[in-house]
């Protein structure tokens, strides 16, 4: 039961991290071999949202 609850909590935190772009930022840092800094976050934001804002949003 504890293992099940832990798995559910991990999934929920994973979904929240995906929706809040934390996973995408982690991938960005790994891809660029960079560490978190205000400048790096701003670069990520600009790149990520330039692509994201081109995608259709459902009705």
């Amino acid at each position, binding site marked *: 039961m504890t293992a099940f609850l832990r798995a559910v909590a991990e*999934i929920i935190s*994973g*979904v*929240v*991290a*995906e*929706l*809040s*772009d*934390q*996973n*995408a*930022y982690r*991938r*960005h840092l*790994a*891809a660029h071999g960079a560490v*978190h*800094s*205000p400048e790096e*976050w*701003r670069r990520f*934001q*600009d*790149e*990520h*949202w*330039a*692509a994201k*804002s*081109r*995608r*259709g*949003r*459902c*009705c």
Partner: protein
Amino acid sequence: MGKNLGRVLWAAIALAAAFSMGAVAQSRGEPVNSTWLVIASVCTYLVGYRFYARFVAARVMALDDKRATPAERLRDGHDFEPTNKWIVFGHHFAAIAGPGPLVGPTLAAQFGYLPGFLWIVIGATLGGAIQDFVILFGSLRRDGKSLGQMAREEVGKVGGFTALITVLLIMIILLAVIGLVVVNALKDSPWGAFTIFATMPIAVLMGLYLRYWRPGKVGEASLIGFILVMSAVWGGQAVAQSATLAPWFTLSGKQLAAALILYGFLASSLPVWLLLAPRDYLSTFVKLGVVILLGAGIVLVRPDLQLPPLTRFIDGTGPIFAGKIFPFCFITIACGAVSGFHALISSGTTPKLLSRERDAYGVGYGSMLLESFVAVMALIAAASLQPGVYFAVNSPAGVVGAAPAAATATITNWGFPVSPQEMSTMADQVGEKTLFNRTGGAPSLALGMAHIFVSSTGGRAFMGFWYHFAIMFEALFILTTLDAGTRVGRFMLQDLLGHAWPQLGRTSWMPGILGTSAVIVLAWGYFLYQGVVDPLGGINSLWPLFGIANQLLAAVALCVGTTILVKMHGAKFMWVTCVPLVWLVAVCFTAGWQKIFSPLPALGFLAQADQLAAGPQTAVTATLVFNARLDAAVTGIFLVLVATILIDSVRVWAGILGGRRTAKSTETPFVPTRLAEEL
């Protein structure tokens, strides 16, 4: 033993689905409890998911976990990244769930709850979820290509170009109609208008917080934003009661439309991190939270449905929108049953994240079932209102009369008793001056949701708070679609115009950004304005137009899906996508034809124009005549565009099946996965 137990369990689920569906369908005279709808829908989804979708996954698509997905083969740490299936599920669901499944079922409840309910559940199980699943599968096997790219490569150049134009036109109509829903919800409502206006500086504050003060702390910024938005909902009551502030936020439809148009322009032109990104975070979390809250509320309260299963308006004389149950019930509810827009998401980010082919089964098919369930919840919330109240809120003044006494007399004569006192008391409870003629679906849905929240938490004194919380949720949701859609429309226009003048295609050239933003905003702004000045409330003409457009996009997606299946298996499994395609073509073309050519002025755009042209001529009449003819032309363009893709597709299928054309697939070759050990 285990296998037998499984068979017994699935037989029990199937029986529960059939029995509860029968209970919902057979009930007459007495209110039905919403629990029946919940059981009927959930059990049907389970059976569809376990048997039909699994059959399609195994036999039709032959999903193969040994095959490397684009996320693995093209992994770049940005777009392509193997991701846990539940996380992709959450991501995909958040992207497909928009305001459509909330508003459509609310409006279609004018036929009674039964037609909408059956269409939502059956349409999603056999049509909508299949469309999403097949397109996701097609894109997954083609390096994550978009619907437009697949249309071009599988069907032909004509199909690809037509799909692009169709999407752009649909986007314009979509933005106009959802804008109209917000305008009608906030019209003459200082509490609602204040709350929504407050979300804009709150989003800017969140943007600055994330950019400069606490870079990367999305959770913190979203929490602060949520607390501030809830404070705005709470504070809105004081604003509405203030003699000084209330007039500032008591806005007419035209003023609100102008504000929305300005907002759309700013959102499309300003840096994305300042307004669009923070609103998107806030809206996503509020959306998921409210959906869960509404689900819990319905399970706890188990409200009775007050609307009858069928109303007298199945004959096409409905006050909310004109037209008979066929085809208009199936046009009004698009998202929640079948939504063409989902094909854009299924061929967007999602195929680039799936780590295993079989994950497409749960993500593609399962997410649509969940959205369908959101639509069922919206229908329950709307149908739990007293029918008289439901029609008083949703009927335009042009149909029932502007004065409360006239409106209630008309609605009572229809067989749905309601009194001016009842409406006045309800308006007082939710902190509004009036609830009459609030067309668009959002206010009646908010009333239904507020009733459920109040009943599950207690405290009738909070009715006003919950009503405005629900309005805030719907408007926040819609505005996020509106600002993102305007930006996407701008990019699409820049891409198109860039072929003629490359400078316009540059997304960093400010005159190009401002010019194309203005074109997109003015295009949907015109239709929005048209809806605002329409004496019948605008929803009557714009929502069916949007429904037709969205369902036609689904027809385009199903044409692409059928072409893929024909190339894989010949005619053997083409029924999987052809059955929903034939249904949608019948529905859309019948609805489109009636909207253009019906001799009834309430239904046919041209008849409406002729009737207006024959009456006294004023500047307003001339505009209304032009608008009706414009709507007829837009509907005609949609039908021609989709007929073009359909004919092109049938030509390709006939060629392949007749042996005159080779079934040249654009599927990427099999590459074995290496992720098995990693995952």
